[in-house]
């Protein structure tokens, strides 16, 4: 009789345990967005330990089985892979993904910050949309790129993001000056500035005259081929070749003109160059 009672008790306990273990389960809503509150429903009875692991979260707390587990917005701020685990006698788990919320900012990279005018494929920009929790928004969205110089629009294009990125590449404009580059996505706008500067000089011409102390040489106003004045500080190299050898002087452009004083008493042939551009040659006679 005792033996029979023991067997019955053991069978009852085993059945009860199987009942609890089998009933303990998790049901997670499908694909919540970052920062969204969700409830995970559980089944079974008794107490269990709930774990949530994911990007930037590792949470553990006791929960009553059969009731919903509330996850606050703060628990699911980061998009990515989460694992929810419910442990009683055994552990059951369910994984789910949190996707990015709607875009709230743009990371906008523009190159270069300074560019010569009229250069092919010289300016490029890359934009990544992020949500308020800094998750990359991978759902396709349209980003409007615009390039404006003073009042004129040089470039305008809507680009749909692919894999969370939109980009453009375009030639630089024809006029030197500041260029505003904008990426816009709904109400979100990111602005960058690119300084367009004159390109290589065009028709570099010099004049020279003998003075009491040597030869004064200077350029005519130096422009690029589009008529932009070369910026101050651009170096022009003057080279004088005479009977006593060769002399070189570097002079920066100041207000469009570069000037240099060269020491030479005899006949001198003077040339000028700036970057890869050669100017004209002049001959200055010897001092009388």
């Amino acid at each position, binding site marked *: 009789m005792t033996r029979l009672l023991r067997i019955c008790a053991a069978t009852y306990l085993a059945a009860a345990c199987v009942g609890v273990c089998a009933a303990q389960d998790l049901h997670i809503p499908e694909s919540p967005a970052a920062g969204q509150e969700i409830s995970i429903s559980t089944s079974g009875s008794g107490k269990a330990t709930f774990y949530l692991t994911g990007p930037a979260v590792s949470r553990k707390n006791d929960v009553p089985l059969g009731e919903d587990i509330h996850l606050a917005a703060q628990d699911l701020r980061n998009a990515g892979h989460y694992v929810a*685990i419910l442990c009683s006698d055994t552990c059951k788990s369910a994984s789910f993904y949190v996707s990015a919320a709607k875009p709230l900012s743009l990371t906008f990279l523009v190159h270069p910050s300074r560019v010569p005018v009229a250069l092919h494929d010289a300016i490029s920009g890359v934009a990544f949309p992020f949500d308020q929790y800094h998750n990359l928004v991978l759902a396709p969205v349209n980003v409007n790129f615009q390039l404006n110089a003073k009042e004129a629009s040089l470039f305008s294009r809507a680009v749909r993001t692919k894999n969370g990125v939109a980009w453009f590449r375009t030639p630089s404009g024809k006029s030197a000056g500041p260029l505003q580059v904008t990426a816009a996505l709904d109400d979100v706008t990111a602005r960058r500035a690119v300084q367009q500067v004159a390109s290589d000089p065009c028709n570099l011409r010099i004049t020279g005259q003998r003075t009491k102390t040597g030869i004064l040489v200077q350029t005519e106003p130096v422009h690029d081929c589009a008529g932009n004045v070369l910026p101050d500080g651009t170096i022009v190299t003057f080279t004088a070749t005479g009977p006593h050898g060769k002399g070189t002087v570097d002079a920066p452009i100041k207000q469009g003109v570069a000037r240099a004083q060269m020491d030479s008493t005899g006949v001198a042939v003077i040339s000028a160059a700036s970057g890869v551009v050669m100017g004209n040659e002049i001959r200055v006679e010897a001092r009388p």
Partner: protein
Amino acid sequence: MSRTVKRADYFHLFAVAGILFLASSLNSYAADAAVQVQLDVNKAGPRAVESLTERGILRDYRFAWSSMAQALQFNTLDSLEGPFSGQARQWLRQTVTSQQQSGLSRRYSDQSHHLEAVFYAPEGDVVELHDTAQYHLQILDGDKTILDENVVVHYVVLMTPGADRWTIRQLQAVPQF
């Protein structure tokens, strides 16, 4: 006699230093070697990925994952400093801090990553990768294993070049590409 003793001391000192150096090298090699990474750059654009760049990304991505695995297993922050930056470093730091508070840890082993470069910026200042990662994941509460399974996770990764390495700025798991 004194000179003999000194020589012997130096010998022991060098021997111990050598063994320690060898052990640490083998340890870091072992950690790195456990992470298998393949990279396909054929679909990268608009800029083509040069072979040196490809090797650099491979090396630094592998190192980043072994560092991350170490940080999340032992709940330490030091190994996250070099290979991660920006948002990725921030959420990893938060993960470690959160694990320290809850007493949990994660163990990533048998890692295999199939990387595909899907975007390489015109000026080479950012690369986007898709990683199909397979690994054995264990989550532990103290010494008790509460999850033990092989998983396949897809990651969207943004890496940017630093002075001497590529760092992961964004590491975001997605259900599929």
